[in-house]
């Protein structure tokens, strides 16, 4: 048996199919993964993401610590509430984890890291914080519910604590508002508008039930995966990890090379990787033949293997199979994927595939 979030009994009551994920017992779906996916694209759905871990980073050295720790530059965060997506690298340029960093005020930050990597991440942060005036505190006392979709705002507003309603509704995309122990980020992992709400574990079930009553559809990890794939968002452990760095995973945009004197962990290794002959392009794939793209299938061009699918599946919005793949630079747009020993035709496209309910690629 895995770890259980404060919402586990809610999932059981709703008839969820529970699966192990990152050490936790989590809902895969509550009946139909595809219907859950559509609910988020068309109206509003919610995910229990309490397995993810908020980590508070505070103190006089918080900013210099974060500027050393992360490949993106925490100094970009000047407005209170603003969020930044960043990779935490090792000295070899491998990805220890990817995270969202929120700026809460001078010397106060909150990172949200992945479930399966949380303990490793915190140990790494503590080791890098030695000798600095910075406190690193794991917030496993908080639950987290992501409410996503075009109707998410309307359905969430009246369910927030009263003093948080106006600030949360006024928060721009990738900003957060907070009050007492509630923290509401206008962030997510679906390509739709919405909120990620961190709140005391004891309050989580009441909010979840109120959201169910407000016709927000409970969604499992299955829909979460197809939504993020359509939205062109990477998954740690699949698209990048300690052996596959950001330059090979389409995350070059998250590396802040300027200012040049900022010495972040992994910088030297990344600089050497930029022009390395083994560096791969990270691309989107649309399957034009019949079948389903899956991780680890080979990408073929000119009769040889030129790459590998990292994430793949069926896109409920496109009703086609899509994927991310790592391929040799210069791979022609018309290529193929080896599905059970047969080459099936595919086309390289630029993710995202879908954002805000709109299809963004040519079918």
């Amino acid at each position, binding site marked *: 048996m895995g770890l259980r979030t404060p919402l586990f009994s809610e999932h059981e009551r709703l008839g969820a199919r529970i699966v192990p994920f990152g050490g936790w017992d989590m809902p895969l779906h509550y009946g*139909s*993964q595809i219907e859950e996916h559509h609910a988020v694209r068309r109206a509003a759905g919610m995910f229990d993401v309490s397995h993810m871990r908020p980590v508070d980073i505070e103190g006089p050295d918080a900013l210099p610590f974060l500027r050393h720790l992360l490949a993106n530059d925490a100094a970009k965060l000047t407005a209170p509430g603003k969020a930044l997506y960043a990779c935490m690298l090792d000295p070899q340029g491998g990805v220890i984890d990817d995270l969202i960093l929120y700026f809460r005020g001078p010397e106060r930050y909150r990172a949200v890291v992945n479930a399966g990597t949380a303990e490793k991440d915190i140990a790494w942060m503590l080791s890098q914080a030695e000798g600095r005036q910075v406190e690193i505190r794991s917030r496993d006392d908080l639950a987290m519910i992501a409410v996503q979709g075009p109707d998410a705002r309307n359905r969430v507003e009246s369910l927030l604590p009263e003093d948080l309603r106006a600030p949360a509704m006024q928060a721009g995309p990738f900003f957060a508002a907070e009050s007492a122990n509630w923290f509401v980020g206008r962030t997510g992992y679906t390509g739709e508008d919405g909120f990620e709400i961190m709140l005391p574990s004891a309050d989580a079930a009441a909010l979840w039930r109120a959201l169910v009553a407000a016709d927000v559809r409970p969604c499992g990890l299955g829909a979460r995966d197809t939504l993020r794939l359509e939205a062109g968002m990477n998954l740690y452990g699949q698209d990048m990890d300690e052996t596959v760095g950001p330059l090979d995973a389409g995350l070059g945009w998250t590396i802040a090379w300027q200012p040049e004197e900022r010495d972040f962990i992994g910088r030297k290794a990344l600089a050497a990787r930029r022009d390395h002959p083994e560096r791969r392009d990270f691309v989107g794939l649309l399957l034009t033949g019949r079948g389903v793209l899956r991780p680890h299938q080979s990408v073929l061009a000119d009769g040889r293997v030129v790459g590998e699918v990292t994430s793949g599946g*069926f896109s409920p919005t496109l009703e086609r199979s899509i994927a991310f793949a790592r391929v040799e630079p210069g791979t022609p747009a018309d290529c193929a994927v080896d599905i*059970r020993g047969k080459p099936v035709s595919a086309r390289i496209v630029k993710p995202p595939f879908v954002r805000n309910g709109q299809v963004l690629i040519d079918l």
Partner: protein
Amino acid sequence: MSDVPADLRYTKSHEWIRDNGDGTVTVGITDHAQEALGDIVFVEIPDQGREVDAEEACAVVESVKAASDIYAPLAGEVIESNALLNDSPESINNSPYDEGWIFRIAPNDMTALAGLLDAAAYQQVVEDET
């Protein structure tokens, strides 16, 4: 509790087999199997005329989650496949024992059918799994 019709035969790998009474059988996957797989989005059906061995993988059902092989329960010739599944793979979720059938076989030895699981034995297989 999933539906296990009494008049069918079954395999441990969750195929059902219906005796059509004309020397042929129809094969599909059980209600329990479709529920475990989740939303089905693609089916690779066998070519008509293909000769298959018992327990040979001859079709593939892909759900949102994963690809699963479907095995021929008896040796014989594939005489028809359900082409409707090309456009409506979700028929397997909606109607696993009827519209969601996958292929028909003319078995080399029809008496082998009696060696497959009956409904009670299959029910036990499902219960042992859950």
